[in-house]
């Protein structure tokens, strides 16, 4: 009797374990399925928005379907075999070894499948590596933890797009619609990786090397991405956005970027902010055209204070929608949605409006100016900089008062 009770107990335990595992499997599957239904997924690789990403999509979809069918067949076969031949106390069946015909078939089928995948893969790789047909060139430089974009005043950039002087910006890459852009990707400190999933695949940015990456957007809009090579403490905060503008809007953007510096009107809060910027910020951040009272240009020297030797150029900060390595929006959520959700026809106008005082995301920008290392970890403790020869890897806390922050924000709001 006791033995029977033990057997019943064991079988109940086994059933509970089985039911627990089944519930977990169902829960994971359901969550995975639900995750695929996410609407706000700006880095969705299944929604290409340019010819290069479409080439990748045209490759990955059939491969995914074939792999899916193969996977289902394999899992179904394994499940059937497990159930059909489960241990029921029967004798071990006769063991056989070697079925040449079957082995040949099972070798040839995977070879054919892999060949079917390899041929279009090689073709796509060569197409994505082509650089001879590109119409515009932009330098992309990664550093801890933001991306710098500079538009060289050379070749077709001058002739076709009117970039008569170098333009330097950060956080948002701005490109014209339906234009084959060539990114020259490199790094100033450690290895990073540049990835805008809706526009193309990844490309590592490596110190001392220049890697080429094609980029093209088919319709105006903003496309998000992020660094995909672990690059230190704030790797997860190293994001980027590509902004695609119609050709007419792009020309307006270029013209605005090339405009001369306009100093704030005397006696305004922005003028106070300008002098504070010169004292506190211009050591690292360049604002083109900013001058001392004697008229001499102020040239930042980030190479003296930062490991990477560079800090974002803030000349036209408020034409961008993000700051601090695209980690935070410069726009309030409402204004951001107004830009992000605009249709193609209205997008350019809304984007080019930049950041107004009504739309400024005061909360995040103020927190940043109060104590940036508390918002984004950046090895900014002055007592622990021996290893980097006294140089920071990001922006240190400047100890600004609220009044100073007000003035600097007033000054920055005019940088567009």
């Amino acid at each position, binding site marked *: 009797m006791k033995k029977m009770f033990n057997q019943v107990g064991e079988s109940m335990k086994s059933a509970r374990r089985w039911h627990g595992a089944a519930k977990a499997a169902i829960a994971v599957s359901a969550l995975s399925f639900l995750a695929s239904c996410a609407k706000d997924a700006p880095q969705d690789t299944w929604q290409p928005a340019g010819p290069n990403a479409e080439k990748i999509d045209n490759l990955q979809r059939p491969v995914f379907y074939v792999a899916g069918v193969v996977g289902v067949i394999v899992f179904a076969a394994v499940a059937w075999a497990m159930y059909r031949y489960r241990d029921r106390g029967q004798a071990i069946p006769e063991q056989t070894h070697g079925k040449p015909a079957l082995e040949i078939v099972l070798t040839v089928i995977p070879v054919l499948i892999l060949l079917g995948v390899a041929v279009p893969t090689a073709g796509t790789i060569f197409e994505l590596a082509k650089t001879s047909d590109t119409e515009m060139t932009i330098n992309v430089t990664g550093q801890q933890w933001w991306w710098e974009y500079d538009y060289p005043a050379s070749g077709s950039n001058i002739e076709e797009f009117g970039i008569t002087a170098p333009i330097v910006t950060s956080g948002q890459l701005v490109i014209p619609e339906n234009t084959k852009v060539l990114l020259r990707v490199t790094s100033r400190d450690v290895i990073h990786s540049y990835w805008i999933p809706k526009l193309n695949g990844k490309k590592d940015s490596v110190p*001392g090397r220049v890697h*080429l990456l094609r980029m093209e957007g088919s319709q105006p809009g903003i496309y998000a991405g992020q660094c995909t090579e672990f690059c230190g403490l704030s790797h997860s905060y190293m994001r980027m956005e590509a902004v695609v503008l119609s050709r007419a809007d792009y020309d307006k953007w270029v013209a605005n970027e090339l405009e001369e510096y306009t100093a704030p009107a005397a006696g305004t809060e922005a003028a106070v902010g300008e002098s504070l910027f010169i004292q506190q910020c211009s050591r690292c951040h360049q604002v083109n055209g900013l001058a001392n009272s004697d008229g001499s240009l102020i040239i930042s020297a980030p190479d003296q204070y930062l490991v990477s030797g560079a800090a974002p150029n803030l000349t036209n900060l408020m034409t961008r929608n993000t700051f601090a390595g695209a980690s935070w929006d410069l726009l309030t959520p409402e204004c951001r949605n107004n830009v992000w959700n605009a249709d193609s026809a209205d997008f350019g106008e809304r984007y080019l409006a930049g950041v107004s005082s009504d739309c400024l995301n005061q909360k995040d920008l103020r927190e940043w100016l109060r104590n940036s290392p508390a918002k984004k970890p950046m090895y900014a403790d002055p007592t622990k900089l021996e290893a980097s020869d006294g140089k920071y890897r990001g922006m240190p806390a400047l100890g600004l008062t609220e009044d100073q922050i007000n003035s600097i924000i007033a000054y920055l709001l005019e940088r567009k």
Partner: protein
Amino acid sequence: MITTSSKLFYGIGGVAFAAAIVWMIANNGGSGAVALVFVATASIFLGAIASYVRDGHVLSTDTEQHDSAPAAQRGSGRSWFPLGTALSLGTVIVGLVTSPGIFKVGVALLLAMLGEWLIQNWSDRASSDPSYNERVRGRVVHPLEIPIAGALLLAIIVLSSSRIFLALSKNAGAIVFSIIGILVLFFGSVLSIRRGTSVRFVGAVCGVVLLSLSVVGVVLALDGEREQLTEAAEEDHFAHRACGVEAEYSDKHAVRAVSAKSSVAATVTLKDGALYAEMDGYSGPLTSITLQRSLNSSIIFQNEDEGEHRMVVTYGKVVESLGGGVEREALLQACTSLVTKGGQQGVVVNIPKPSFSSTEGFSITVPGLEGASVEVLVP
């Protein structure tokens, strides 16, 4: 029972514990006190073990054990470690008065010798079976000894060979090492044919060759590098430097590092008296290039014209102090050495300031050729 050796450990433990208290009072806590408490704890633990096993002594009444107990066995009797320890100690002392490098080598040797000596003494008395003792020692130290000895052997071969290469002329070096290679191949072939050759003979030959290589290497290292290398080093032409007097011994056909040539920012060519640049991502020749700020950029210069020319990258000015309150403005420049027709040279520039910071702008030029210039823009 407090035995002889346990007294030592208890004593160390007591002193360490007292020192920890003194340390804590003097330094208001700190990691030193923690370390001393650990020492005290470990010593008392070892003392307790020594007490428990009564120092491993054999009882006086157990007369059979007097000769067979492990502690009664004689050591191997031919230990080199006392001599090695003495030499290491000498090296440490010499290093103290000469150079930190020798001192560090001496300390490393001293620690190695003391460790070996300790393990030797322990293994000699691990059991009453000398062959077992030898195996026990091998299990402990061979995983360290063999790789280190192998690395040292390789280091001797590489260092000696490199000293010989640097001392001989370029042609003589190639001839000498070709002959050595042929001899090694010949000896190896003979060994493969004559399978009965004794291991001792092979070892002796290898030892003699290694010793000869080391002796020749040391002699030639003391004699110094060949004349051209010595003078080239004095000229410091290996380093990229501000443009000055042309280096006499520079290698005008230097290949440079593969990495510098495989990922260049720009290739600048002098042809028919004109200068133009080519960059990845641009079609056709450029007379204006943009380089990123604060980024190492490799620029290759290739000369397609007759005669020797050099490329000069000018990227602003710097104020130099000449002493006594006297200052002067100097150009920030990076240069290649003179390049003959068909030759290439590279420079790496890192420009920390934007080009608009200079009223004259930044440029790439070839001295002596009017109009041969490429504009350099830095945003």
